[in-house]
């Protein structure tokens, strides 16, 4: 195992990736600690059941670290990781296609603060979660990358190997469909 890098301040992702490639396990752990929660939010938003979230996050990191040689800095490491998470979730869905995936309602419930405000907020999140599950995968992923993680179209396009114009169209189609779905419910 390689010696961990001496740390005085947080290292950029690229340095941690290089350190991991050199055998530094602490660098891998730091990348996990840095990106696990945003990845979990993305997976939960994309329909991952609460009970499986930890395993799906782990699987995503394992797949990412195993194929990190293919990451060429075309986008941020986190964006690349989120797209791998989408693939891991797709594979999980295939394996469990006969099992009903749990809705996100449990995951978005909050017991602090004004109960009425939280009830309204939770209802909106549950509605959106149900709407997202009805979208084609690409529209769902583009919407989450843009709306949930605030990424620019150029960044989304680089991660999904498409153009920024195409990403913009997928996003707006997703918004239109979500408005229709939410209005219908």
């Amino acid at each position, binding site marked *: 195992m390689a010696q961990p890098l001496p740390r005085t301040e947080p290292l950029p992702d690229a340095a941690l990736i290089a350190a991991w490639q050199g055998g530094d396990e602490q660098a891998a752990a730091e990348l996990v600690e840095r990106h696990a*929660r945003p990845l979990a939010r993305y997976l939960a938003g994309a329909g991952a059941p609460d009970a499986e979230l930890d395993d799906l996050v782990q699987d995503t990191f394992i797949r990412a670290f195993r194929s990190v040689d293919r990451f060429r800095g075309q986008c941020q490491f986190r964006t690349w990781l989120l797209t791998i998470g989408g693939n891991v979730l797709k594979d999980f869905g295939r394996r469990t296609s006969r099992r009903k995936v749990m809705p996100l309602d449990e*995951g978005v419930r909050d017991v602090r603060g004004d109960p009425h405000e939280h009830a309204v907020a939770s209802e909106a999140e549950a509605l959106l979660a149900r709407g997202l599950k009805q979208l084609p995968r690409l529209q769902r992923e583009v919407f989450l990358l843009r709306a*949930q993680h605030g990424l620019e179209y150029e960044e989304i396009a680089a991660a999904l190997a498409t153009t920024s114009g195409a990403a913009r169209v997928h996003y707006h189609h997703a918004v239109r469909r979500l*408005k229709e779905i939410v209005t219908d419910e």
Partner: protein
Amino acid sequence: MNEDRLNEVARRLGAKAAERLDVAETARRVVARLREEPAQPAGVVWIHQTWVRIAATVVVLVGGSVALGVLSPSLGPRGGTHAAHLVADDLNDLSTDELRDMLTSFDEIVTDSVAVPESGDLRELDARDLRAVLRDLEG
């Protein structure tokens, strides 16, 4: 729910589930798995996946051609060949206007709605973007 509200709700989506995640424990498990589970050589995975895809494509193309031949015997072998032609191959031959028309038609078929998105208007896209959207939709 308007677009701003959708974005606001999306930003909160999954936050509670993510907060419950024990990131230090997750990191420990990931490192342990990386150490314990031997990596399959990337080349083997790639070759395996590629062969599966090739086999699946051949099955779909041959099956589709046979089915088309049975359903429409008058088309003959030329019809079967045409059915096996990938849509993406044709995209390079289309003009920007033709691509836009095709995408609008596709959108109407899929969503059963004539309106195109306001700020994602297809008229704003160039031929490269339109091809990318169509290829994305084709998968």
